[in-house]
């Protein structure tokens, strides 16, 4: 493109706009290499290159150009990529800045944008009235899934999803400030300046690359003697320089949550050709502000008339931005169709830049102020009380047909190559509404304005209906000072912001709603461009009984596209109101919901990806276990050693070997993840009496006991061994998964029900690494390392605890067993865990002991009939159900769960009770979760009387073993029951739950 007189596109006007002609950028659109200027959006660069056709609509696949120059864009959505993984669908061309190497392509079209077969839908559109799909596709029944739905799904959907994992990263920041100013236009900057100079901490954000808001296009306002836009840049720079201010551009406030918590999304690199790898793609700001100043401006509405969607037809403000900011003329012959004065300013700017304005079609009786006269002085024809009846031009508007308002007929054709439209401005009350503030209808100006606040916020400027720049600045400065004052800042001072405004008063607002214009009924007059919702669709919805605006929205999909109705909602409402014959406020306004504009999932996720998705908790022994070949399983957030396969060993073989070795020699097991709570204080035993079903008073220091904890409703909540270290000190253990909730549960009772007890709870789960040494040789393995503790059976019997040293470090040594073998659980301070473990393992390995994992642990305990809470119980099992009624103290006056246990249903004799199961064929291992029936010949639905909770191959028993809960199970000993599987029914015998060493002799070797 070098050598082109017009840098960055043929429609670039020399001397116009604020971009630098020398700074060119090369990008591509649908494979065509194009040149734009640095600072261009895709939309401005394409128009500069004479391209108006940018997309296809959702339903009818109609050719579309850009409607707006901002975030409200419904039409010009594109797929944009930097490389194959950095790809993004549905990007608004009016927002995406171009950079060298950017690739854009149109979407929702096949085979090409100019020639799209999907456009056949447009021809068939009479069939596709609003909600048509509710009325058809019902025959034959199965065709919906197989035929209709797939077709509908393929036709819908705009762009394509990314197909590769996202290589970019995202950042997040919490921020706190006295004042958050949303919007960096004249109002927002003025408020921020006033607040900041009063000493308040201020965050100001704006979605555009530069501050300025409407000053981007409105050249009629001068501030402090310079152009408004220049003032905005200088003010932003001044603010950015202040320590108490953070200025965020390319940053959209998307969600206003409770108590002034506002989510902002900052686009950090999507406009850069070569971002640094440390830069996040986007950054989420979660701001808590003492006060929020909403200066979110207003959004221009389009005119609703037949054929209003052709490429080349756009909002007047958009044309003005393209001209005044980007230096791009949208056409050579541009007509105007308006019901709002501000379109005249656009027309005059265009004319001043050399664009021909063949006609201004004015829907009203006359425009405000002296605009009519000025237009005529400029030689522009103004047709008041006129409407556009139709337009022509397949891929770009080529002519308009103008008729007097209310008249029918073909009208007068006027040739154009672009058309600018304006039906007035909708104040952006989105965030205000999200804050749960109530909007109020202002009948005089025909718009919803902020009404009653629900949070500590203030709306200023155009979003609050303040149109006059002088009044607006006054209001903004007051809001800034007041916000600073409210936050406790006491500095005084008032920034000087003098306005020189040459433009007309924005004035007349009322005529722009379709209801008032009375546009012709024929043809497709689009209300929601992206979803192809026409005025007729809305009238049809009302006719069909959709009288709530929410029904209208859902039935027609008006306002539900990616722009969320920024340009269409008010029109939809006005048409519905007109059809219903009701005033607008009685029809209501659909609720505004976060986000204001779509927000990237990755931004919301931030750092919570990969290893930071959820903490992976590893025990102090993890590294050694890994070195020794452990395979790990996830248990809650913990990584636990599951089994230790040797070369060539299957899981089954490894587990069998581990189980056998533990019973023949001994095994080492990492029990560090078990929850541990230190209960300290003179009332410790009294407290445990209340929290456990067991009685604790008589437990001597140095002894341990198995305890059961219930919920108040009588069901088992957790279990574990509790050791008494001293009269006033207990070492409580919990299940691995239960640790946090058990502590919370105990704190709850301690703080709120039993605050009179002198006792404190401290989590010591992570203080201690726990090495279980289990098996006949357990004592011999640890003996050489133990210091100061007599570990003989007499001195330290089963279920006792001692404090002393092992390997020279302090230990809490428990004599206990979850395997049925002689066993110890060695607690050592976590940082020493690895060293102690290595010392023990060196000796144990030499003695042919093994390491065993959770799977072998499960088998070994099942051989002994020990339950695992959460596996053999769920939240519906009582102690008696689990065969643990011996652990429920009969004489205690109170414990948590005592009342719940007494309820009728918990006393039923036919409750499901824990039993053992032996398969008739000892080689068959039942599947955990398999259901049990008494009558194998019953037809489906079968009567299920229980299920298998635990089931394993037991190498030590030489057969399979299982535990199950079975209705009335304990009275069924010896009975044959059945486990129906998909391919066969397995016969089982009900037994008790102890499969190995029924007398428990092995606990003492």
């Amino acid at each position, binding site marked *: 493109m070098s050598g082109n007189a017009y840098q960055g596109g043929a429609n670039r006007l020399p001397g116009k706009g604020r971009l630098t002609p020398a700074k060119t950028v090369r990008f591509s659109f649908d494979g065509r290499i194009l040149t734009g200027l640095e600072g261009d959006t895709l939309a401005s660069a394409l128009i500069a290159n004479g391209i108006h056709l940018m997309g296809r609509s959702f339903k009818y696949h109609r050719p579309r150009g850009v409607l707006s120059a901002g975030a409200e864009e419904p039409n010009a959505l594109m797929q944009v990529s930097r490389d194959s993984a950095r790809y993004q669908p549905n990007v608004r061309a009016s927002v995406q800045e171009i950079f060298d190497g950017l690739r854009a392509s149109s979407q929702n079209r096949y085979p090409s944008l100019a020639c799209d077969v999907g456009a056949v839908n447009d021809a068939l559109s009479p069939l596709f009235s609003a909600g048509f799909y509710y009325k058809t596709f019902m025959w034959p029944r199965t065709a919906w899934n197989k035929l209709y739905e797939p077709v509908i799904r393929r036709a819908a959907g705009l762009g394509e999803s990314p197909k590769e994992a996202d290589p970019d990263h995202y950042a997040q920041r919490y921020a706190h400030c006295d004042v958050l100013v949303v919007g960096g236009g004249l109002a927002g900057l003025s408020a921020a300046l006033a607040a900041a100079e009063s000493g308040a901490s201020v965050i100001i954000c704006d979605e555009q690359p530069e501050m300025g808001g409407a000053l981007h296009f409105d050249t009629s306002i001068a501030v402090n003697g310079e152009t408004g836009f220049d003032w905005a840049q200088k003010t932003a720079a001044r603010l950015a320089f202040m320590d108490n201010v953070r200025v965020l551009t390319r940053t959209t406030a998307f969600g206003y949550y*409770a*108590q002034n918590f506002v989510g902002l999304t900052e686009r950090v690199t999507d406009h850069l050709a070569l971002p640094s790898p440390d830069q996040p793609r986007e950054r989420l700001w979660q701001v*808590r502000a003492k006060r929020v100043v909403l200066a979110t401006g207003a959004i221009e509405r389009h005119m609703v008339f037949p054929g209003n969607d052709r490429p080349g037809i756009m909002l007047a403000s958009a044309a003005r931005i393209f001209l005044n900011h980007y230096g791009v003329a949208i056409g050579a012959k541009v007509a105007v169709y308006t019901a709002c004065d501000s379109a005249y300013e656009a027309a005059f700017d265009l004319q001043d830049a050399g664009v021909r304005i063949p006609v201004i079609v004015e829907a009203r009786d006359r425009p405000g102020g002296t605009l009519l006269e000025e237009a005529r002085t400029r030689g522009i024809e103004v047709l008041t009380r006129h409407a556009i009846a139709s337009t022509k031009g397949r891929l770009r508007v080529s002519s308009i047909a103008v008729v007097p308002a209310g008249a029918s007929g073909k009208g007068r054709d006027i040739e154009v190559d672009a058309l600018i439209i304006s039906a007035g401005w909708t104040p952006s009350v989105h965030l205000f509404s999200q804050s749960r503030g109530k909007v109020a209808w202002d009948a005089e100006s025909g718009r919803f304005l902020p009404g009653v606040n*629900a949070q500590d916020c203030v709306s200023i400027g155009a979003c609050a209906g303040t149109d006059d720049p002088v009044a607006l600045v006054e209001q903004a400065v007051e809001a800034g000072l007041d916000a600073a004052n409210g936050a406790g800042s006491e500095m005084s001072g008032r920034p000087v912001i003098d306005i020189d405004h040459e433009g007309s008063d924005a004035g007349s607002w009322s005529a722009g709603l379709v209801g008032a214009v009375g546009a012709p009924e024929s043809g497709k007059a689009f209300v929601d461009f992206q979803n192809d919702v026409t005025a007729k669709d809305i009238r049809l919805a009302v006719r069909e009984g959709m009288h709530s605006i929410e029904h209208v929205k859902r039935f027609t999909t008006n306002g539900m596209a990616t722009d969320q109705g920024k340009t269409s909602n008010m029109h939809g409402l006005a048409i519905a109101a007109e059809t219903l014959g009701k005033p607008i406020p009685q029809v209501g306004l659909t609720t505004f919901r976060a986000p204001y504009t779509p927000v990237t999932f990755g931004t919301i996720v931030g750092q919570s990806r990969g290893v930071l998705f959820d903490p992976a908790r590893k025990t102090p022994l993890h590294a050694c276990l890994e070195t020794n070949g452990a395979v790990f399983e996830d248990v809650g957030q913990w990584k636990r050693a599951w089994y230790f396969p040797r070369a060539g060993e299957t899981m089954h073989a490894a587990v069998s070997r581990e189980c056998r070795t533990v019973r023949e020699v001994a095994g080492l097991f990492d029990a560090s993840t078990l929850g541990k709570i230190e209960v300290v204080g003179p009332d410790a035993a009294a407290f445990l009496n209340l929290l456990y079903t067991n009685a604790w008073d008589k437990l001597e220091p140095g002894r341990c006991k198995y305890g059961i904890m219930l919920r108040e409703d009588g069901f088992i909540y957790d279990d574990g061994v509790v050791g008494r270290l001293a009269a006033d000190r207990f070492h409580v253990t919990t299940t691995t998964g239960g640790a946090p909730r058990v502590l919370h549960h105990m704190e709850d009772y301690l703080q*709120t029900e039993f605050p009179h007890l002198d006792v404190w709870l401290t989590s010591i789960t992570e203080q201690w690494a726990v090495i279980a040494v289990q098996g006949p040789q357990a004592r011999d393995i640890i003996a050489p390392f133990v210091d100061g503790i007599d570990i003989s059976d007499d001195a330290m019997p089963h279920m006792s605890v001692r404090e002393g040293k092992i390997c020279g470090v302090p230990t809490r040594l428990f004599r206990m067993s979850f395997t049925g073998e002689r066993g110890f659980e060695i607690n050592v301070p976590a940082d020493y865990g690895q060293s102690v473990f290595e010392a023990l393992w060196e000796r144990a390995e030499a003695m042919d002991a093994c390491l065993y994992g959770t799977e072998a642990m499960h088998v070994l305990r099942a051989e002994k009939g020990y339950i695992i809470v959460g596996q053999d119980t769920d939240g519906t099992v009582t102690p008696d159900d689990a065969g643990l009624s011996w652990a429920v103290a009969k004489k205690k006056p109170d414990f948590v769960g005592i*009342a719940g246990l007494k*309820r009728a249903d918990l006393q039923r004799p036919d409750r499901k009770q824990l039993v053992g199961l032996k398969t008739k064929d000892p080689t068959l291992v039942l599947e955990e979760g398999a259901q049990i029936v008494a009558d194998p010949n019953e037809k489906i639905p079968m009567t299920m009387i229980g299920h298998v909770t635990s089931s394993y191959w037991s190498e030590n028993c030489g057969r399979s073993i299982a535990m199950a809960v079975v209705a009335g199970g304990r009275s069924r000993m010896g009975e044959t029951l059945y486990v129906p599987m998909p391919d066969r029914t397995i016969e089982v015998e009900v037994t008790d739950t102890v499969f190995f060493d029924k007398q428990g002799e092995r606990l003492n070797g």
Partner: protein
Amino acid sequence: MLLIRCPYCDESRPEIEFRHAGEAHIVRSDKMADLTPDEFERYFFLRDNRKGDVYERWRHIHGCGRFLNAVRNTVTDRFLMTYKAGEPRPALPDPQAQAAATEGNGQ
């Protein structure tokens, strides 16, 4: 994310430091063993679940660890007050004072 004033920390803190702990001022009988099924149902299952101002418990679990009580409006989610566990159920602030509080800072 709500902002909750912890009466122990004497500061407003973000919701994620807290855990909601259900309706407040439900009294656990000192004779639980004698509760009838009806009484147990009332104590353990039935809840006011009011639309409007509710008394509720929170725990500043990732802060000072204390349980506390709050009065919150379940329509606006605005906190009217928070107070320490064990303190008696306070009368609700009069509506005018509430309105005044609404005018000022949310918290």
